């Protein structure tokens, strides 16, 4: 087992989490008893074959989905005890989520997309604008503020999505195959960004099929059939 910063409390703490679809004969266990602890500041890559449960795990961690059984503590909070509203607050403040398919709000400018999570947190318009501009600057899109998603390339869209995930300064950045739809140049740019975010002390968890992407992470978790089969920390030089 990896133990990077043991003296800290884990930011993600899963105990025997099960996610079951259907019941009886046809039951599918997308997660089949997953226990996992991830500590603040870690950079974790999750790998595994298609259908092994990676996205399901990520959705549970990101509070988008609720496990069938097991316990999940995020930053020490028992997620099962939160209601719908409190979950929305947690999603807004603690988690930045990046999807493979970008998931920007259609027909809405890049700037408005990035401002959106701040709006839902009730942050004032002025401050919202300043922070969104800063986040877009960080991802190198200061010259594309008024562009709508359809007017941006895939790589640019993903960078807007990253800016949107980072603008709330979340403790946890989750990315489900963020490079799946990008070319090698965009992939490299994005991974540089993740390094930067991680270097700033934020926890990064990403799913990938590509070994060279996983290489950038400090810890790699492998899944098969809803179970974690391997968990290796990179030996630091």
């Amino acid at each position, binding site marked *: 087992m990896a133990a990077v910063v043991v003296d800290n409390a884990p930011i993600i703490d899963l105990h025997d989490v099960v996610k079951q679809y259907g019941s009886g004969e046809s039951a599918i266990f997308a997660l089949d008893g997953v226990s996992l602890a991830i500590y603040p500041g870690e950079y974790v890559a999750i790998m595994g074959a298609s259908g092994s449960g990676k996205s399901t795990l990520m959705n549970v961690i990101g509070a988008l989905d609720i496990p069938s059984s097991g316990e999940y503590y995020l930053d020490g909070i028992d997620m099962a005890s939160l209601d719908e509203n409190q979950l929305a607050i947690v999603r807004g403040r603690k988690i930045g989520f990046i999807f493979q398919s970008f998931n920007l709000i259609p027909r809405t400018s890049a700037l408005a997309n990035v401002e959106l999570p701040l709006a*839902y947190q009730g942050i004032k318009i002025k401050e919202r604008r300043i922070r969104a501009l800063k986040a877009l600057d960080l991802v190198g899109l200061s010259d594309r503020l008024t562009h709508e998603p359809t007017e941006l390339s895939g790589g640019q869209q993903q960078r807007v999505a990253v800016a949107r995930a980072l603008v709330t300064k979340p403790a946890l950045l989750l990315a489900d195959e963020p490079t799946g739809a990008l070319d090698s140049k965009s992939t490299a740019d994005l991974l540089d960004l993740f390094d930067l975010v991680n270097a700033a002390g934020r926890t990064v968890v990403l799913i990938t099929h590509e070994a060279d992407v996983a290489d950038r992470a400090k810890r790699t978790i492998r899944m098969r059939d809803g179970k974690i089969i391997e968990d290796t920390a990179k030996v630091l030089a």
Partner: protein
Amino acid sequence: MNFFEMVRFAVRGLVANRLRSALTTLGILIGVGSVIILVAVGNGSSKQIQDNIAKLGTNTITVMRGGGGFGARAQSRNTQGKPLTVGDAVQLSDKKSAPNVKQAAPVSNATSVCTNGSSSTTPASFIGTWPSYFEAKNTKVVKGTYFTNDDVTEGRRVAVIGKTTASDLFGEENPIGKVMRCGGIPFSIVGLTETAGSNGFLDGDSLIISPITAVQRALTGYGNISSIVVQAKSAKVQDQAQIEIESILDKSHGISNVNSRDYRLLNQASLLATTTSTTKVFTVLLGAVAAISLLVGGIGITNIMLVTVVERTREIGIRKAIGARRRAILGQFLIEATILSLVGGILGVLVGFIGSNFMIVGVKPVIVPSSVFLAFGVSVFIGLFFGGYPASRAASLRPIEALRYE
């Protein structure tokens, strides 16, 4: 997120889906506008009919031959009993026995072809009567003069004619002082009546009015008259006048049982009441047609709203994933629906008001306020309910379910 923010979001959402927003608004606009205009047309035509009836005379009671009631029974009774005579009209004019009657005039209807050289016309009504008829029936002479009581006593063959009759016989020429021949007998024209227009069935200007004595001698003979026109002193005493008429006629016709009267009274008020109730049916019918169009429009709106929310379920998922609470999402969609239906409703009311300024199939529409409120209310309700319901369903989805929605 405060209310103002939600409105901003809603407006942004509407602008982002411009075409659909415009179409929804248009649907509501047409529904609301058509209800207002159609009901206004119904109402306008009923007002028009009422005005026409009012034009026929004020406080007027017409005495006709035949018992009360309708159908075969009344008809068979027509042949019995005493006919109306000029004598009845004289009695009804008596100030002592009928203090509430202002004046009465016998009416004798003739049918005759009138000629002037090679021109000829058959007037829709050829009336022999007394000068009091003009006031009782609100018929005004605009050119020339009325005929006088003297003309009646002397049996002078003079005539007041309507515009249609005048133009049929004399074209553009001034008819006053000219002579026409009716049934071969010459009548000299002394007056031209004010244009009355058509009531849809009869041309009110195809008209000849002459002293009853002249008409009886020349055309109808001295027998029965068709009716007696009685004018009450005012609308207030119309009922008393009616009672006086009845008691006078009952006496002179020797009637002891009210049910076997050989005459009947037709007063303006009851005529107005009947036509009002028929035109009300007309208005209700038009209103029903309009309501159906509003309903169909409403179904259209519902459809668009449903599609909007379904299509945007994924968007709702994204919003939830980045921290939107249920309230924020529901608020945005509800406000979007409200804005759409309010704007559509207001524009519809505007279109209704503007459209009602034009003549529609010959009717000047008159807006019914309740139809405006009803149409507006229904459209807003439809927008809110059918926009709100699917939105609330989508807002309660777990984010992952909404995100996976295809």
